[in-house]
């Protein structure tokens, strides 16, 4: 039988993960060009296109291993122009907690139009973090 996590364990793990985004205050999502760095802890790569502030706390409490983000504030004036390649999720101190690929019509961050224009708006709808059963 495969190793499985019960709901209590999944919720505890999920809450511990998403609480990392709240260290020091509200975290943020950076949208950058190019592929994700090899490791999350590696230095940022690509051109910074924009930054979207997270709520504080960033997520509600997990339920059945799923935590849902509170509102993500849009970047109403993107810093640079380019194609969104990945997102980097930072805590308030600017430390990367996680990252995700971004693409158009696919990818973990699924942009409807992945071309970002300086001075434009970048928006991300609600998102979730899931700790699976196994």
């Amino acid at each position, binding site marked *: 039988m495969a190793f499985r996590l019960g709901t209590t364990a999944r919720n505890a793990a999920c809450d511990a993960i998403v609480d990392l985004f709240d260290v020091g205050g509200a975290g943020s999502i950076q949208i950058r060009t190019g592929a994700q760095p090899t490791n999350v802890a590696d230095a940022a790569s690509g051109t910074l296109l924009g930054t979207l502030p997270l709520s504080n706390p960033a997520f509600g409490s997990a339920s059945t291993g799923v935590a849902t983000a509170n509102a993500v504030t849009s970047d109403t004036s993107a810093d640079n*122009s380019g194609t969104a390649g990945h997102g980097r999720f930072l805590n308030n101190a600017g430390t990367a907690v996680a990252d995700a690929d971004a693409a158009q019509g696919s990818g973990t961050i699924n942009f409807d*139009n992945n071309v970002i224009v300086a001075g434009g708006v970048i928006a991300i*709808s609600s998102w979730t973090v899931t700790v699976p059963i196994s």
Partner: protein
Amino acid sequence: MQRHVGGSFAPPITDEVRLRYAELIDVATDPQVQDAGTKLAKMVYKYQKAHKELPDSDGTPHPSGRGVEVALPQEIVQTIWDHVPFQYEIDGIAKVFDTVSAETDKPLRDACFHLLWFANELTRDRQPITTDKI
């Protein structure tokens, strides 16, 4: 992390902005940038000329939670058909424009990607969702 939807919205391109972009593109040193940029500027011109009398209409909510998607009437689609690149061409143009430095050549880069953003909207046969509409 589950997929979540992102949206990118750019400012409108006025005649003045389009002409300014054309001037920047005219002096681009990379002939590929110059060629693609010139064609996209013409695409925007053709769209604006065709779109002038188009009334705003209802549409469907954009998946990012901001803005509304409004389909273009077929006659406008046909009018601009020859000027709007296919998605695979847009992807190729993005790689060319990405060679324009965000540090040393920002105005040109911003102009190029702004035009490319429009192409990415028009290739879906919809009214570009500019920042004045969200």
